[in-house]
């Protein structure tokens, strides 16, 4: 499967738990990313996508949240087991992250230029002038107009989308081998989004950067992903090559998600939705976590379905897949 992409990161059985919460918020999540490969994670708001990314970066809100189980091997080291000092060598250097909310990683008290230059100096040991030069070059690459001027501006002086690009510039400044991007283009209009995605793709092609991208924009997923993992309530419920996920969605949650995408044509009635709410950790159903909202749920769903291969490289965690067969059986 990964012959063309030498393995960069292998996540195996990763679980994250909050103190006082009965159920894992991220539960037994496994995936791999190869060099130059893009894995997109999609899933319902609140399903644990950002926490998965934060766990890999060693940035979980401690002591409230902890990795309860699992391994995440990156360039030969298990990230979960590393101490903070080793982790901070890797973070922002071999592995970098673009956060969902720019203001969580940009410090309002420092100029944008100082923040990027500091990240460069810290890991590369270059002098001030060189670091500033690198910062300007990165802002230019991230398509920020008047880059030289923007270096001396504070985050609040930038528009929402410019802040996001400044953060992208900072994340890429040290040529990471693995980039984790949490909704990297959400605040951008489609034309800048296209440019930023191209920037990331170029970087991947030139340097073999692996990309873990979290996004709910299925258009972006279709255009950038090699593979897609669909999460629901902390678990990966389906995973496979991008074409398989879009053309042959197997898990009922994925099917509902694809059905909810608005079309670009003229309005035709209300938007489709997946009715109901995500279960709370206190009220997590036994077995399949989607069973409380699934129109196909049956008695078998009280058992936790294993992620099972349904076609080469395409795995699904649903006892009722492929659903047309089960529906036909029920009718018979």
């Amino acid at each position, binding site marked *: 499967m990964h012959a063309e992409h030498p393995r960069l990161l292998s996540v195996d059985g990763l679980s994250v738990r909050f103190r006082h919460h009965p159920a894992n918020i991220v539960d037994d999540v496994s995936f791999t990313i190869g060099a130059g490969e893009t894995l997109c994670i999609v899933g319902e708001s609140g399903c644990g996508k950002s926490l998965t990314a934060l766990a890999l970066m060693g940035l979980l809100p401690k002591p409230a949240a902890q990795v309860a189980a699992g391994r995440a091997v990156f360039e030969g080291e298990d990230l979960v087991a590393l101490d903070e000092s080793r982790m901070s060598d890797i973070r922002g250097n071999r592995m970098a992250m673009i956060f969902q909310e720019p203001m969580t990683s940009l410090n309002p008290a420092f100029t944008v230029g100082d923040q990027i230059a500091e990240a460069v100096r810290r890991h590369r040991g270059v002098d001030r002038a060189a670091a500033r030069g690198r910062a300007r070059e990165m802002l230019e690459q991230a398509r920020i107009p008047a880059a030289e001027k923007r270096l001396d501006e504070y985050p609040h002086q930038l528009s929402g989308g410019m802040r996001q690009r400044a953060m992208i510039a900072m994340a890429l400044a040290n040529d990471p081998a693995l980039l984790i991007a949490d909704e990297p283009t*959400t605040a951008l209009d489609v034309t800048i989004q296209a440019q930023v995605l191209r920037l990331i793709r170029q970087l991947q092609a030139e340097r073999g950067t692996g990309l873990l991208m979290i996004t709910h924009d299925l258009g972006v997923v279709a255009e950038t992903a090699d593979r897609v993992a669909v999460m629901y309530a902390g678990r990966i419920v389906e995973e496979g090559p991008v074409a398989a996920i879009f053309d042959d*969605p197997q898990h009922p949650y994925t099917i509902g998600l694809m059905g909810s995408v608005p079309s670009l044509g003229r309005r035709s009635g209300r938007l489709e939705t997946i009715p109901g709410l995500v279960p709370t950790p206190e009220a997590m159903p036994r077995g399949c976590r989607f069973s409380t909202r699934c129109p196909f749920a049956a008695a078998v769903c009280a058992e936790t379905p294993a992620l099972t291969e349904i076609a080469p490289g395409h795995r699904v965690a649903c006892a009722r897949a492929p659903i047309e067969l089960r529906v036909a059986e029920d009718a018979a």
Partner: protein
Amino acid sequence: MTGAVLETRGLEKRFVTHRPLFGTPTEVHAVNGVDLAIHEGETFAIVGESGCGKSTLARMLIGLIRPSAGQVLYQGREMSGLPQKQMRALRRDLQFIFQDPFSSLNPRMTIGRLVEEPMRAHGIGTPGERRERVGRLLARVGLRPEHADRYPHEFSGGQRQRIGIARALASGPKVLIGDEPVSALDVSIQAQVVNMLEDLKEEFGLTLVVIAHDLAVIRHMSDRVAVMYLGEVVETGPVDAVFDAPAHPYTRALMGAIPVPAPGARDSVAAILEGDVPNPTAPPPGCRFHTRCPFAVARCTRERPALADMGGGRRAACHLRDELPAFDTRAPEPGRTPGAARRFELWRTARSAGQDDRHRKTTQAEETQP
């Protein structure tokens, strides 16, 4: 009277970005001469390039920041001249959903307090009534009543955005301005929130102003749209007309850059608008888009095009407005691939069957009651 709930006349905002000891300060002309009229009960969308001044315009619309020049009129009255008391009432009528949910929610307040606060500030209801309304609002945006006791940091990005929406609805506003109100949400929750906003609009006769990057969502929910570029409105009109036959080259570029939710459906690289975004402290002369416009002629580099009437409620600011080649409309993209559509049919059938089941069960339960 103009029939507009909100109207702007020659609205401008300049920010000083650098003030040297001597000489002239550097300014960003974030909003430059915007004239808009937003009608009661409509959904008006503002789209445009990142940094083009959408948030700044929206903030001026509700009086959060003062214009450098020009006016904002609410129900025909100029906002900046209003006395304190009327300004308070106006704050109740005009509510805002912020672009960055994290920095707009006080981290030390519980969700319940945050949503209740606008009601308290405007003296709405008794504590009991307010608490009940908080519960209802949270449910409305797809959060659980028990979430009321938690703090913002305990929520995901999309959940925080919904808290912001609940809070904006709390005071019973007449106009709701959403700065990217659904952009942090996955498509199914996004669809729930969009449907909810439409219901609320019906129910309370709300006027909605939405800023969004997702053009499919914009088309679905709005009546009219204004397209901005570098501080100026370059095109405005009924949403279907603008989407089907965009008149301004920038609008065309925007339509061409929409990612399609089907792998391999579009050669994404071909659609990229080339050229750098101009420096907003020194915008290009003439038409501000000429540095990136594939159609630009000499005149565009000198003369600023006016936002001229095109009939049918449309206006566009382009010298070549009437001469451009017809826009090659691609077939409207379906939201889903044929494979996904087939499975979704099964889903729909199963769902309506399930609803029948449930309906039958509840009616049986009712019948068995004494």
